[in-house]
């Protein structure tokens, strides 16, 4: 079946499906009985079943690796560090923001002064022109 043989019989396909489900840990009694019967006459399926059983057994027997005792403490410490880091970044961004604000305010004040001066100059210039016109007309 799976290994080496080119043609699969219907029974081999059924057996292969059963073996794959066995890997998932869910094969009913009837299919298991069929599988046991089938592998007696089919060495290829027998080999596949043997390998699948070995794989599942090995995976199930692998020991779970526990976290070190100080794991939670280390996580919390790293968390505090990262929070402090982000606070520092926020503070730095805040400082940069307030510096930018000062520049914007200064530029705004400069523009306002320039506009005011221009208006004053325009008003004075107009008054001056009226005076000249008045002098000219009286003359």
């Amino acid at each position, binding site marked *: 079946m*799976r*290994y080496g043989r080119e043609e699969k019989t219907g029974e081999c396909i059924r057996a292969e499906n059963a073996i*794959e489900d066995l*890997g*998932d840990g869910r094969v009913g009694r009837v299919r298991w009985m069929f599988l046991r019967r089938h592998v007696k006459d089919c060495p290829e399926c027998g*080999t*596949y079943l*043997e*390998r*699948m059983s*070995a*794989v*599942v057994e*090995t*995976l*199930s*027997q*692998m*020991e*779970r*690796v*526990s*976290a*070190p005792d100080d*794991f*939670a403490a*280390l*996580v*919390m410490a*790293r*968390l505090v560090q*990262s929070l402090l880091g982000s606070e520092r970044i926020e503070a730095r961004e805040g400082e940069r923001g307030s510096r930018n604000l000062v520049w914007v305010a200064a530029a705004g004040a400069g523009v306002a002064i320039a506009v005011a001066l221009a208006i004053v100059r325009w008003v004075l210039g107009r008054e001056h022109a009226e005076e000249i016109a008045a002098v000219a007309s009286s003359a």
Partner: protein
Amino acid sequence: MPNSRLSRDAREDARLVRECLGGDDGAFEALVLKYQDQVFNVACRMVGDSEAMDVAQEAFIKAYQGLETYKPGMPFRAWLLRIGTNAAIDSLRRRSRGRDVPSEMMVSAGNGADGTTAAAFDPPGPDTDNPEAVSVSNETARVVHHALKGLPDNYRVVMVLHHMEGLSYSEIARVMGVPRNTAKTWGHRARGLLCEALEGVM
């Protein structure tokens, strides 16, 4: 695991998350203590001993930072393991980029090509008194361990979560953000590759 236990766990997790969002860091520490072994084990099986600590810590930091995005409808364990497996896969990708070797290419040859040590996967002890059988059993375990390390990342995640953490395919699908049938197919293909690795051994 009985349903009542699951729902009690889920309720407890939801409470701890709420308390944490309310500013109680002690609640988050309780979540770390509750799930640290699972996250650490998955990290260890994915990236090996040397990087597991960093990956597992990173997973919890990311979980804390993203806690506001957590939806209580999803089991906290699945949400956390999703972050953990993503952190592990990111770490593997960074590592493989450094070596110019795609992680899918680090397959089954059994020479520890991904840099993890064989010590990370202690073979199970002999469970028989027959010396020949003991030898075959240890050799089989060694080959399976090496082949597991060489599986594509998504296949390895399914194997670790299903066989070591006891998650169902539905839970694995939630963790990996894929349909259940996809997770199941990956599981079948992964075991198929592990069986193929045993060719010549049995």
